[in-house]
């Protein structure tokens, strides 16, 4: 595979950029694979990459109904963090942070991981207490956490509202300095390019229409481009999980909801941290292009409509202005909605299923992007070894029956309350 570097860039420039290789091929599906991953999003692509890299399983196909990276990995607010209270989430995410830190070099694709720090603002004593508790949990799990007082927050983000004309004054915040952002499309493309180079077939515009199961074991899948035999099948389709589950006669503790986000027009750098509002649901960072990337609420009802909804965005931006009044003078450029696989305790599922050889990766709620490498890594392990890794042992499907819930927000089954 062609190596990307400043030298290859110069060399290619001198030949008019005529000699770049395909980043990934566009093959037709083969008759049979060892592993078929359904879903060409970030998690599916990462899974295929780690199957090849960590487990030397390369007879792998990724089946994507549209084009790779077109789902939530291509429409999110790019935040990467591991500031969780529960051990399962903290340890899993922190393992992911390590993978993020070396991702550009691993993939030979600049994913622009930018550890600029995330600050969760607190607006009450109760919240400061909750953050102190969460920060302590994080530190016990080896994750960096700093509790900031009001003055310290002001130092870092002076454009936040420290005036008297504020509804929810800032009491302080919890910062994870090593958290940050990455270039979302590049993550999908980088994984795709490496997976492809190791022999994985990336099959786009191929829709799964059914599954072949006999005697409780998966035999293959049916697609719009013919039947494909497979020893193992991994489901990695985020917001489409319920659609495929229906074809498998499974009902899952998952609902599909729409999350709204938007960006402003680009402006010169003014905000170099990721910041979340504590008196609502709003988060913001400034992209390298200068756009304010802002997200927040679910539409609040089951939805597969991938489109923006202004009343929701109004709500999101109201909180944005409450936190950073200067946003008022900017203009909203683009909005989008991403469909989320909301699990009933807000945490993901990476597990085997009752069908032999069928594996499930879903329930990412709003947190899917940051989990991309750790999700791919552990899912690959679960598929390759036919058993869960310690890191994803908490993310079991039966935890809802057993009561081993991992509920960071304490909202329970009302997934539509964000």
């Amino acid at each position, binding site marked *: 595979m062609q190596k990307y570097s400043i030298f290859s860039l110069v060399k290619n420039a001198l030949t008019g950029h005529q000699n770049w290789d395909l980043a990934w091929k566009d093959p037709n599906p083969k008759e049979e694979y060892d592993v078929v991953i359904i879903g060409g999003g970030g998690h599916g692509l990462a899974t295929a990459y780690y199957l090849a890299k960590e487990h030397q399983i390369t007879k792998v196909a990724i089946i994507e109904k549209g084009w790779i990276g077109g789902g939530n990995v291509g429409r999110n607010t790019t935040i990467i963090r591991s500031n969780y209270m529960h051990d399962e989430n903290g340890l899993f995410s922190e393992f992911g942070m390590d993978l993020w830190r070396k991702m550009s070099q691993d993939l030979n694709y600049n994913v622009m991981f930018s550890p600029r720090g995330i600050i969760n603002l607190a607006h009450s004593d109760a919240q400061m207490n909750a953050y102190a508790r969460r920060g302590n949990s994080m530190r016990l799990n080896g994750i960096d956490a700093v509790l900031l007082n009001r003055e310290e927050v002001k130092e870092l983000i002076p454009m936040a509202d420290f005036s008297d004309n504020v509804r929810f004054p800032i009491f302080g915040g919890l910062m994870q300095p090593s958290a940050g952002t990455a270039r979302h499309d590049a993550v999908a493309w980088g994984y795709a390019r490496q997976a492809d180079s190791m022999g994985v077939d990336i099959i786009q515009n191929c829709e799964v229409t059914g599954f072949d199961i006999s005697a409780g074991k998966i035999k293959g899948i049916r697609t719009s481009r013919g039947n494909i035999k497979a020893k193992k099948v991994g489901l990695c389709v985020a917001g489409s999980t*319920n659609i495929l589950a229906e074809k498998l006669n499974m009902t899952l503790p998952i609902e*599909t909801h729409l999350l709204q986000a938007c960006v402003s027009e680009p402006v010169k750098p003014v905000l170099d941290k990721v910041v979340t509002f504590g008196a609502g649901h709003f988060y913001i960072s400034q992209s390298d292009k200068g756009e304010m990337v802002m997200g927040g609420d679910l539409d*609040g*009802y*089951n939805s597969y409509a991938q489109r923006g909804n202004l*009343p929701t965005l109004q709500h999101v931006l109201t909180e944005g202005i409450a936190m950073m009044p200067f946003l008022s003078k900017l203009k909203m450029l683009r909005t989008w909605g991403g469909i989320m696989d909301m699990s*009933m305790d807000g945490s993901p599922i990476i597990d085997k299923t009752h069908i032999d050889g069928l594996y499930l990766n879903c329930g990412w709620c709003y947190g899917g992007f940051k989990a991309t490498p750790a999700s791919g890594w552990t899912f690959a392990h679960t598929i390759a070894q036919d058993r869960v890794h310690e890191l994803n042992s908490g993310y079991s499907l039966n935890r809802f*029956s057993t009561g081993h819930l991992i509920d960071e927000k304490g909202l329970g089954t009302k997934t539509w309350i964000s």
Partner: protein
Amino acid sequence: MLHIKCPHCGMRSQNEFSYGGDATVKRPELNKEVTDQEWDNFVYNRVSPRGKHLELWQHLSGCRQWIKVERDTATHEIFKTYKANEEIA
């Protein structure tokens, strides 16, 4: 913003309502023995279809009645709305 026909009050804007989730799950009767599976199906498991979905809404800033709404989750088209205990056609 959805426009929902409250069967009691008429067409109203979505911001008067709050969502209540899948209306097809049925709470097992009190004092009745149910299997783990039945209970999990009530508490956790959801079909969440792409297409027609029967769901609960409460007309919170209206008559405060819980209603059932048959809506398409892809297009958001609302086909019909029902009172809390009205027969579903």
